[in-house]
């Protein structure tokens, strides 16, 4: 993917750019809000990663300006200001995701990947399928092959989110935000516990595993193999 990184701190910009290049993306860097806005408006990018506080127009202004001029490129906003109000402000301005500094690189990579492929996801489907796992959103039922699976509400939300994002790495933080609505880190391992309980329900003995753990990154739900 072609990614624009707007970040005034040289070390952070280089860290982000290098990490994304290693993952196979083409990365441009803009060091001021003005340059960033110009580049974002004149070149087609797949994802824009912008700092929130920038010299010149700041991250919020950039997103608002882009959205106002019809540029729909997904934007991930980075910030040292991570409280809920700022987060809501960022998303309201038109950013697609919000990530607090400091962050683990795996977190950034997973979120950029999720944003880049966002349009492929269909929000209107009533039946989600991954391999032989099937979730019927209207009948509220889940089955693997012929086996009917009973899920608790939390497990249902977790599986639905993973199936809607099948094939993507979902980090612990992303799951906490989307499934549990947490914008803080709990001190217990609730994601690990619930993923493992979900696994025990959808991968009974003899069935090929569907949820893979990516060490240091997160989880991927996808066809076995």
């Amino acid at each position, binding site marked *: 993917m072609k990614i624009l990184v707007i970040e005034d701190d040289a070390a952070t910009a280089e860290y982000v750019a290098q990490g994304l290049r290693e993952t196979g993306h083409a990365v441009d860097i803009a060091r001021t809000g003005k340059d960033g806005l110009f580049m974002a408006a004149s070149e087609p990018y797949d994802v824009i990663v912008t700092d929130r506080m920038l010299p010149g127009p700041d991250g919020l202004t950039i997103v608002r300006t882009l959205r106002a001029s019809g540029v729909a490129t997904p934007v991930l906003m980075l910030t040292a200001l*991570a*409280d*809920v109000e700022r987060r809501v402000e960022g998303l309201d301005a038109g950013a697609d995701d919000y990530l*607090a500094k*400091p962050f683990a690189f795996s977190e950034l990579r997973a979120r950029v990947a999720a944003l880049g492929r966002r349009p492929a996801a269909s929000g209107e489907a009533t039946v989600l399928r991954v391999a032989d796992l099937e979730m019927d959103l209207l009948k509220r039922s889940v089955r693997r092959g012929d086996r009917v699976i009973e899920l*608790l*509400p*939390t497990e249902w939300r977790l599986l639905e989110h993973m199936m809607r994002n099948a094939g993507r790495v979902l980090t612990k933080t992303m799951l906490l935000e989307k499934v*549990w*609505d*947490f*914008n*803080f*880190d*709990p*001190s*217990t*391992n*609730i994601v690990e*516990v*619930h993923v493992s*309980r979900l696994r025990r329900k959808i991968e009974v003995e003899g069935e090929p595993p569907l949820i893979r753990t990516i060490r240091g990154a997160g989880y991927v739900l996808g066809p076995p193999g």
Partner: protein
Amino acid sequence: MARPADLLRSFALRTAVLAALVVLLVTGLGLGFGYLRSERVLRDNLDAALQQEALGLIAVQRGAGTPGLIAEVAQRAQLRSGSAIVAALQTLDGRRIAGAALDLPPVLTGFATVTGPAGGQLRTLGVVVPGGLNLVLAADTRAVLDTAATLLESLMLAGGAAVVVAPLFGLLLARRMERRLAAVSAATEAVIGGDLTRRLPLSGAGDEFDRLAVTINHALARQEALVAGLRQVTDDVAHDLRTPLARLRQRLELAAGQARAAEADQAVLDAALTELDALLATFSAMLRLAQLEARTDPPTDPVDLSALVAAMAETYAAIAEERGKTLLADIAPGQQVRGDAALLRQALVNLIENALLHGGDRVRVQVAPGPVLSVSDNGPGIPEADRIRVLGRFVRLDASRATPGTGLGLALVAAVARLHGTRPELTDAAPGLRVTLDLSGVRIAS
């Protein structure tokens, strides 16, 4: 004390001068009006006296005939020469028959004011009586004017006194006000200078100044508490962040001094990252807490408390089970509050995680109608003496030192509770600890 120049510029003095002017104006109006009224009353009295005399003489004529009247008038002119009221009789063409020589114009009827023989003003009442005669009663108005003049004089004296006293009174008022304001200024300057314990003096009169001073003193007390809190935070940060940072530094320094070895290095780096993450978590929690504590506007979104608690109870029932514990939920349905769902969720998570970490093997999450939210465990509980203290920052009782945690969990619960108009109450669950949040103050009636 204020210099004269300051006094002239002062609001107090301007108020006093204004007050003096108003006093003068009112006094002046009162005096003038009083004078006019008094003169009028005196004149009316004179007229009444003239009328009385006239009626008396008419009665004499009726009884003793015209000659009797002439005799009576002539006699009066002789006997009562010093009287204020004199009588005269003249023919209708102005010829004097009897009585005082007043040099009157011919035929006076009704009340009139004429110039007397001595040049003074005469008030007269003339009546035409049977026999073709004109009876005239007259009084010198000098007596009336003298009385009025005396009155005016004393009124002027009183007015003069007001002219002198009113500004003096104003000045006194100004000085009193100035003195109290100066005390307020001095105290405020002291606070600005850094003496946060200083308070405005109270006069004890309980007046507007005292009430204002009480309000300002409240503000000062709050500020003192905030600054004390800030100092406490700084100390806490120094202690609770420096220690792990120092540990991290030692770890890295030790590793740097040794020969590179892939496996050992990896272990050091992993440990360092874990340590850093814990530090960052503490740091985030502190920032969050500081933001919450500084916030004053209460959140007002409608929150389905029952649903929120049910979802958390389900999530943590799984965690409890993994640890061989039980989490029971007892949730009254349909309980709604005005507030912030994200904050309430985090406060609840902190309470549940505390209970799972420090409590026994049974955790009970309850929403009673009210709504009253409570989380209790069957662990060792918290001694009564420590129950207020644990709501502070970085307070970790000795028993919990060995377990993970930032020491900010309950402080955050307290901050969230404050934003929802309540405070956490720690009680004995016999055995164990129960933390209760009474949210009835932000209830939405269903």
